[in-house]
């Protein structure tokens, strides 16, 4: 048996290195996803500000899009958009 020091042992079979922890990835996917209408979008970034999960990011053309790995489908962006540019549609 090899003697290991405390720092070499894994904690709860998860943390193999000290100071490192796992990012949380949910396996559940939301039923609804936001879709932007570029004709109505004014690029005011209110959806970006209000999103609790930071799922909305700015694209190169200045408009916004969602990362469905992070989105929980709450619909706050749809509710808060002043111009009605965000609609909630069924996710694939």
């Amino acid at each position, binding site marked *: 048996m090899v003697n290991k020091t405390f720092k070499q042992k894994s904690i*709860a079979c*998860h*943390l193999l290195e000290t100071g490192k*922890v*796992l*990012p*949380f*990835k*949910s396996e559940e996917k*939301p039923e609804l996803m936001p879709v932007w209408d570029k004709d109505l979008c*004014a*690029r*005011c*970034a209110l959806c*970006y*500000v*209000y*999103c*609790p*999960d*930071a*799922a909305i990011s*700015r694209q190169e053309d*200045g408009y916004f899009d969602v*990362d469905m790995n*992070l989105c*929980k*489908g*709450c*619909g*706050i962006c*749809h*509710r*808060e958009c002043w111009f009605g540019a965000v609609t909630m549609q069924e996710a694939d």
Partner: protein
Amino acid sequence: MDRYSVFVPKLLPETELFSPENRSCPGCGQAAAIRIIGKAVEDHRRYPYGISNVEMHTSAFPYKQWELTQAKKPGGTSLKLDAKKIFAMAGESGSFDDGIRMLTEAKKQGKSFIYICLFNEAGIERHREVPLNGYHPDGTKSFIRRLHDMKNLIDRAKAISPDFMATACPSHPFDLVDKVKKTLDCRGISFLAVFVPCPTGCSYDPAQSLNSGRLAVETGFFPLYQIEHGSFRITVSAQSVPRVSEYMKLQPSFVMLSPDEVKKVQDAVDKNTTQ
């Protein structure tokens, strides 16, 4: 002209101190508040790593949601010391247990201390340390009884007379950013009470989460103000003040209340706002 580059980064940086892979419910007002506070703080070394209700959905054991790469977590405390400034963040129950005591102690010792208290309107835990808007979903009748013997945390914090004290809500994000920046600039003790809507606790549509916070502010349930070195100023005022019944209509838990009881709540709110 690119509006994004003019509008948002002037007020909010693009860095995310609160990682998006968090375990909060859809439409969580607390996650929205923490994210905006993190954007206001900017430097991750100044960000608090709190053991409180915030910890519950952010740092369950093998996971983490904080982008604290260089900072170390102090063991067994919810405080983080940096540049002689103490930064703490906790929920309302924890604030009653320890927070108020810490504030008085910091005032006595003359330390530079920032305390951010996240008010959950629902009170998923059954406790009584709630402001005017506190109630429990399955005990709505007791809400009226509790109106008379409530312990108001904000009034208690006001009695300590901090150098800067304010209330904020993530439904008004730039107001929240301004107030967090003021607490960072304040040299004495500062107290910030942030109202966080909870769609799970109050059982309403997650999309209405921040709208609920906005209604709470506009009706006077949770007025946004600041007290800076003794001078009182209301920072967000509604053009037309809606009735409290509009705020209660949003939340199915209040259906049980009769019109007389809603009127009692309205009277209490009016009395609170005129003071």
